[in-house]
């Protein structure tokens, strides 16, 4: 909109920028206590005395150099989009540090109004800031506020309104304020003279200072717009001259001058206590970061996190499942009814999609708890302490203290999800560590891997279930660490590393409102991002497992079988009074009616069931008499119906299996057998693993579809001698599953967070390869050495442990 006035919100991390954003716009936006959460540029709208304003939330940065993408984003935005006004946010309890940033902002010749935020927090620490002095020193208006308490909004709007009259005037504002650089001033003048003749798109003095600072971003901008690199050579000479004369690096000199100025202003404007006030934060840190109590508290908090999200989450998920079953039933009722053998595409595809969606929705309670706990950890300020405590260990493997949260979310030990895990890597400032974390998060044990573990453990390791689960839970962490180190020594060797400098913010109790807001925003984001993907992927998988389908003569065979089954039932019908009245067309409605009646009676008391039966006999006398075995005819037909029903189910299962075997995925599974035989996988397991690409919980379900032969359970099917599956096969399969490639939704998240499809594909291929290598190594190795599954398991465990410990001592090069 043309008449809208754009205002940018700028400030350092943790200065309460986001709370001001919410205060002004009322927009639902993320607020957190962890440095660097706001990376995206966010927009919000508000009215100021009748005028429409657009508020742009800039990334929080400590400085305006050009070392991080956030800084460059901020600068580019200010230079190119030229907002009419900048709202510079200062944290009242650390004015000096904030001023250092603000002075740089003003040097860019931007129109600034200062929002002095968190005055209440400062007051509680006996720090008082005089906004009048600050305003006089800086030459701009300063407004005090406590955005978190909702105080100061009106004053802020008034200040914006007061500036508004000048918005329409000339675009090129002279600097309202500039730091005086003492000895460097004549040198700045000289650089300005050099650049003067050219038509630069950005402020002259700022450009000169930045060139003297050797700012790579401005250097490249200048090079591009002047097409004459001679300027840079001249500037370099001037830099050297300064260095020779004053034995000081101009870059550092500039920084010192800014700090000097910031300190001077802060000293004038702030009144602080003479004696140190020991804040609650310092007292808490004395315990939470203590040599002994620190790790102990951390373990306790992480255990609590795990317990609440996974254990309690699972209990809630089980409750929620009732609801999702209702959804599935509803879909089945709405979609065209099933046919005797071949369902319509709409029916089978529709049911398939609904099932795929509900299988993810099933995790909703767990995600809800997880996201809420993450918000609490972030807002309380403890997350930064976790990074502080664990960085040493993680850093040795190429990870970062801030990798902790993504790994927990991804499922260190057991139960997590790679999607929120990968999402949470956003805050890691070190590019190499961030990539390593993104690549190993999918190796953790997400919830969807658990059903397969549980199935295999129940069948093959029933006596050592506990220790086997412990093996799976911990060996993944070792393998993850080994992989992390290898990745950072090889493919990620040249990714940039960044210094580990994180602010340890003051502790505060998170508000219920803020936690709920963040939880629902994240849940919403999560579902928005994956819902379409799940549907699309489920359609693709459906095609892969259904086509090309059965050949005509196989179809004819099944049709014949079906006819024989139907014929037998109809012959029984002929023997009863229903002869002539009940035709072949009535069979499907009869089966559907039986299912419906069963569903209705599920979980009700016996008296209620009797009532339902009585009502059914009244409403549908013919169908109900058969289903409920009323009279002689009813008894005969009920028995016949049971045979019909089970024959139909068997036929459909046989058909599905055959379709599966002939399908694209089945063929792929067979083709892969030559490679996977070293790991002990036959084509059936290959198919199960391939189907898990869409979502890992499919693996147990597909194994069920393939091995759940006849009426037996999956477990019986797996155990059956003719399949030849031994505990060693199961071990290889579980190890492969631990390293299994991320499911498609997680892979999409990897693409989003790494910004490239290349890394997404890499992550899928390397994990698949690693999984296959490990499974083959264990399976073939154990066979050669004649080890039992349990022996192989613990030998492998020992090898991983030793490798991980040895790799700890290998030094990583900083890039």
């Amino acid at each position, binding site marked *: 909109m043309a008449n809208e006035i754009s205002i940018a919100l700028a400030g350092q991390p943790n200065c309460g920028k986001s709370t001001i954003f919410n205060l002004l716009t009322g927009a639902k936006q993320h607020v957190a206590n962890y440095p660097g959460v706001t990376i995206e540029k966010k927009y919000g709208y508000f009215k100021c005395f009748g005028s429409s304003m657009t508020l742009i939330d800039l990334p929080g940065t400590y400085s305006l150099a050009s070392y991080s993408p956030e800084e460059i984003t901020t600068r580019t935005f200010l230079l190119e989009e030229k907002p009419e006004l900048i709202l510079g946010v200062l944290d009242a309890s650390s004015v000096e540090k904030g001023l250092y940033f603000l002075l740089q902002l003003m040097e860019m010749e931007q129109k600034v109004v200062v929002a002095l935020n968190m005055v209440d927090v400062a007051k509680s620490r006996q720090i008082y800031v005089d906004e009048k002095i600050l305003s006089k020193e800086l030459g701009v208006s300063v407004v005090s506020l406590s955005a978190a308490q909702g105080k100061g909004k009106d004053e802020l709007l008034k200040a914006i309104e007061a500036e508004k009259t000048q918005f329409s005037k000339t675009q090129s504002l002279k600097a309202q304020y500039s730091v005086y650089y003492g000895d460097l001033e004549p040198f700045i003048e000289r650089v300005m003279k050099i650049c003067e003749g050219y038509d630069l798109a950005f402020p002259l003095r700022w450009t000169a200072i930045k060139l003297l600072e050797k700012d790579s971003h401005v250097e490249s901008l200048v090079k591009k717009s002047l097409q004459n690199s001679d300027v840079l050579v001249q500037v370099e000479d001037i830099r050297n001259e300064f260095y020779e004369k004053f034995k000081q690096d101009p870059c550092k000199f500039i920084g*010192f001058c800014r*700090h000097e100025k910031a300190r001077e202003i802060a000293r004038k404007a702030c009144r602080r206590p003479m004696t140190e006030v020991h804040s609650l934060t310092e007292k808490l840190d004395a315990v939470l970061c203590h040599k002994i109590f620190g790790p102990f508290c951390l373990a306790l908090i992480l255990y609590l996190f795990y317990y609440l999200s996974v254990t309690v989450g699972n209990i809630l998920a089980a409750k929620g499942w009732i609801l999702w079953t209702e959804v599935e039933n509803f879909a089945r009722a709405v979609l065209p009814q099933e046919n005797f053998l071949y369902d319509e595409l709409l029916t089978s595809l529709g049911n398939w999609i609904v099932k795929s969606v509900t299988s993810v929705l099933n995790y909703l309670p767990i995600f809800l708890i997880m996201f809420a706990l993450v918000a609490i950890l972030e807002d309380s300020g403890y997350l930064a302490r976790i990074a502080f405590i664990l960085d*040493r260990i993680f850093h040795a493997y190429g990870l970062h203290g801030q990798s902790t949260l993504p790994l927990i979310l991804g499922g260190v030990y057991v139960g997590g999800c790679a999607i929120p895990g990968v999402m949470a890597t956003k805050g890691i400032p070190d590019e190499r560590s961030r990539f390593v974390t993104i690549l190993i998060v999918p190796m953790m044990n997400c919830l969807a891997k658990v059903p397969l573990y549980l199935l295999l453990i129940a069948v093959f390791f029933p006596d050592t279930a506990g220790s086997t689960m412990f093996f799976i839970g911990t060996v993944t962490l070792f393998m993850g660490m080994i992989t992390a180190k290898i990745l950072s020594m090889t493919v990620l060797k040249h990714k940039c590393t960044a*210094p*580990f*400098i994180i*602010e340890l*913010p003051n502790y505060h109790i998170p508000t219920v409102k803020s936690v709920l807001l963040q939880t629902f925003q994240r849940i919403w984001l999560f579902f928005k991002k994956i819902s379409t993907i799940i549907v699309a992927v489920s359609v693709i998988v459906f095609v892969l497992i259904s086509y090309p389908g059965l050949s005509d003569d196989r179809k004819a065979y099944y049709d014949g079988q079906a006819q024989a089954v139907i014929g037998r039932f109809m012959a029984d019908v002929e023997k009863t009074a229903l002869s002539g009245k009940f035709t072949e067309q009535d069979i499907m409605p009869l089966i559907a009616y039986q299912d419906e009646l069963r569903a209705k009676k599920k979980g009700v008391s016996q008296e209620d069931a009797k009532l339902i039966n009585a009502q059914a006999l009244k409403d549908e006398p013919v169908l109900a008499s058969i289903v409920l075995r009323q009279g002689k005819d009813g008894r005969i037909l009920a028995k016949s119906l049971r045979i019909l029903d089970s024959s139909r189910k068997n036929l459909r299962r046989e058909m599905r299996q055959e379709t599966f075997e002939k399908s694209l995925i089945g063929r792929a599974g067979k083709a892969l057998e030559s490679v996977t035989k070293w790991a002990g996988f036959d084509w059936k397991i290959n198919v199960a693993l391939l189907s898990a690409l869409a979502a890992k919980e499919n693996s147990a379900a597909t194994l069920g579809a393939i091995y759940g032969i006849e009426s037996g359970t999956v477990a019986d099917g797996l155990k059956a001698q003719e399949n030849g599956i031994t505990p060693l096969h199961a071990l290889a399969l579980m190890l492969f599953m631990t390293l299994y490639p991320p499911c498609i939704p997680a892979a999409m998240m990897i693409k989003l967070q790494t910004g490239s499809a290349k890394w997404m594909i890499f992550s899928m291929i390397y994990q698949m390869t690693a999984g296959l290598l490990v499974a083959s190594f264990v399976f073939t190795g154990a066979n050669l050495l004649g080890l039992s599954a349990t022996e192989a398991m613990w030998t492998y465990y020992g090898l991983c442990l030793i490798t991980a410990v040895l790799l700890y001592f290998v030094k990583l090069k900083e890039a």
Partner: protein
Amino acid sequence: MKTLADLKNKQECIVKEILADGILGQRLMDLGLCPDTKILFVRRSPFNDPIHIKIGDYHVALRQSEASSIMVETNG
């Protein structure tokens, strides 16, 4: 001369010189670590690294390798 990484818990010091440049130099500068700044070495992490320092009113954690580029003077 000592570096910041050599200090003990609860020890105070004055910054003399910063030997780092590039991104590390910039980040340390952003924290306000220039000559004559007073720093309190609060504690080491339970696993010895990183270290927790207090500059003015705010608390920062940085790795030992980074802290060793900050030359300091203690009064003890």
